[in-house]
């Protein structure tokens, strides 16, 4: 069931996997990371974020860690998430697919400039 939902991988789910690639984060941390990395072009709302997290958890692509507070955000306990090995593999394969598409777009001269 989850495999069907994640094939193709939705944009929000891919961004969450990327946000968790370098460190464990809580929900708001993921939101902030995604917004920063995309220059505020992708802003995940709470419903989309936790809906995607639920799907990724069911598929075993991320895992939930014990609650603990974020020192930057006060004493409230937060649910942290970590990328699993299969989550990392899926993110890598998705990134490679996108890179291949990007190469084709460049060869067709659809995309120009160093920023792409």
């Amino acid at each position, binding site marked *: *069931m989850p495999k069907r939902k994640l094939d193709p991988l939705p944009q929000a789910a891919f961004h969450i996997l990327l946000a968790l690639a370098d460190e464990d984060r809580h*929900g*708001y941390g993921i*939101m902030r990371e995604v917004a920063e990395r995309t220059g505020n072009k992708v*802003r*995940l*709302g*709470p*419903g*989309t*974020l*936790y*809906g995607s*997290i*639920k799907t990724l958890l*069911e598929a075993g692509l991320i895992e939930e860690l014990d609650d603990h507070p974020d020192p930057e*955000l006060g004493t*409230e306990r*937060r*649910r942290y998430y970590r990328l699993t090995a299969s989550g990392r593999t899926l993110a890598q394969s998705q990134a490679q697919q996108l890179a291949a598409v990007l190469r084709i777009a460049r060869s067709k001269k659809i995309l120009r400039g160093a920023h792409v």
Partner: protein
Amino acid sequence: MSEKFYNWLLKLYPPRFREEYGDAMQQAFRDRLRTEPLFRLWLDVLRDLAISVPREFRRPPASASEPGVYRFSDSAVRKMMSRGHADLRTMLLPLVAGALIAWAGDAQLWLSIFVYSLLALFLLRMFFRRGGVRGHWHGYEVVLEEDRISYRNHGVVRVTINRSEITGLHETGDFGLAILGPTVDPTPAAPGVHEVRAHRRGPIWSAGEGQIAIWAPAVLTGYAELRNRLAAWAPVIHEDVGVSQGRMLHRWHVQMFLGSFYVSALLVRSHDWLLALASICGAFLIFLAVVVLRDAGLPRFLKLIPFALLLLLAIKVVFALA
């Protein structure tokens, strides 16, 4: 203020999702409230709600593959909604009555009323099939663990009975098993007595004082297996074939028939369309009040007030038309 409103909006999500992630979503909203302009935040949140709420309702229950969880299959849902031949009887009832009345009085007028009545019934059935029931049935699950049985709706456990405390298993016609026992749920809907209901069509089984009941309907996926496992727990299954099934269907037919007849008679006989429309809206609101009050833990005389209002309205309309 914003936070309270967002907490209220979270009620739009399915209960199971809300239970799992409601607190985390509130916290994420609070965090964004501290750092983002209010207008942009609400724009994001409303767009997010419009996308994510329907998606969560479409999400198939993960419990389908959990061992010990019994839920309705898709075909069972359709079967429960259409009720097979019961549908046909509901449609035929006004036709037969219409033919009899037409024979006794103004044939053309009364026949036209009953044609409209049939049309109204058809539309009502379409409405109930498409929107009203499907989601409700899909959320119904009976969870059989090693030492207890629970009923849960959209993942939220409503009632639990321990294995050693089952006081009775009653098989009620096509409706399946009513499992009785004392509740261990600290907040039952009505302490002491709990009615097992088939959606909103009426009670199937009323548990006695100090008891609670879980209904395992016959159309549950794996019903036979569930029944066998329960029989091993409490070897005597009392058969109460047709205890309340007939009465319930009868009441449903009568309600449908009276409702459609009332609307049709108004449309055909009344020359004042505004009055007819207002009367139909009034009757509908009263009917909604009946449905809401029926499930509320109120004294019986209070529940009868909407019925009395409905009766008064019907009498007034009949006199106005005469």
